[in-house]
């Protein structure tokens, strides 16, 4: 098997490398490349886009299963339960259990915490083999969209 960046163990390193690539890449790529972020413990304390997200937009994004994909695996107090997945923790009360910074890192790069996790890293250029052309060179969600989800999920308290 040829070595691929997927084998990189430090996600922070790869994100920083992507950040550095901004300077060398064409403008289109630069717009979509993830910005650098700082991990502290199991959290990313500062908002990715530099400003807090919008909980209402986050709720709408949570409901857009083809874009956010969240409910394919997670259940929670959003939408009909019979259309929700059972592969990942229920998100009911997640705002009690995790801080916004902890939620942020789990969306950005769950594999930094659990390398074998099913959860895709939402804010990383995919480095697995055979990424389809339409999805290359861009993260699953933008920084702003992730902040909207962080804002929404932080409101889920029991």
């Amino acid at each position, binding site marked *: *098997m040829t070595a*691929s960046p*997927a*084998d990189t163990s430090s996600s922070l390193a790869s994100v920083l490398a992507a950040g550095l690539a901004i300077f060398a890449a064409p403008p289109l790529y630069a717009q979509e490349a993830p910005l650098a972020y700082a991990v502290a413990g199991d959290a990313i304390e500062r908002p990715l886009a530099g400003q807090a997200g919008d909980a209402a937009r986050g709720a709408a994004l949570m409901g857009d*299963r083809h874009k956010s*994909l969240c*409910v*394919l*695996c997670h259940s929670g107090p959003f939408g009909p339960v*019979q*259309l*929700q*997945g*059972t*592969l990942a923790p229920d998100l009911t009360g997640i705002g009690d259990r995790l801080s916004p910074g902890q939620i942020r890192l789990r969306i950005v790069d769950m*594999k930094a915490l659990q*390398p*074998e996790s*099913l959860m*895709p*890293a939402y804010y990383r250029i*995919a480095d*697995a*083999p*055979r*990424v*389809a*052309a*339409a*999805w*290359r060179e861009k993260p*699953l969600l933008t920084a702003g969209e992730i902040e909207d989800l962080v804002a929404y999920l932080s409101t889920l308290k029991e």
Partner: protein
Amino acid sequence: MRRLRFSVAGGLLAAVACGMAGAAEIAPQDRRSGADFMSAESRAMQAEDAANPGMLWVLDGERLWQAPAGAAAKSCADCHGAAQTSMRGVATRYPAFDARANRPVDLAGRINLCRTGQQNATALALDGQDLLALTAYVAHPSRGLPVTPEADARLVPFRENGRRLFERRMGQLDLACASCHDDNWRGRLGGSPITQGQPNGYPLYRLEWQALGSLQRRMRNCMVGVRAEPYELGAPEYIDLELYLMSRAAGLPLETPAVRP
């Protein structure tokens, strides 16, 4: 004993380093056909020939089986006689090794080799209606018989490659076939049963397709789902994957033409 444990740990480390899914293969006693995950209505549709839309393709395949084709003007029946007897059990053993191709071929590929080699006809289009119909007709006499992979040593490296592909994470979502179909087959994805990804009903009628389709079509669907670039139609990777899937399905009854949601 200590050395053995050490090598197991090394294997696990290697699996992690290669980005493979973590889990173990499904134990033989836990193997379950996709039919087991369906609604009673869908199971009844599959079981009753008059209600099973896949039987339309089987009937069409019977016509093609009898029809002379190619420069040789020979029909399948001219050499093979009645498919109900001559083809019984054949589909349970495919893919099988073909000496001239020097690699395994699936049942549809075998039919096309017969067309080009024996009938002097052109190969039928992969995933075209005629090849699907003939494949369903040839597989149908094996319905109810257990999947019985060939114990042919020449198949081993291809089957191993199939297993490697099954366990390899890919696409933007960075998931392997095994991530769902070995590790989470009891779960639900967005409300739908994940199932074990068993290959024992193909070609099958999928309600979502409103048509009969091949295992390759189904695998392409999954690859698109994880946002991976599907292999080309007819690519050797699909044959290797099917070889592995059929070994993983050993003992399950063949269901062609199955019905699936």
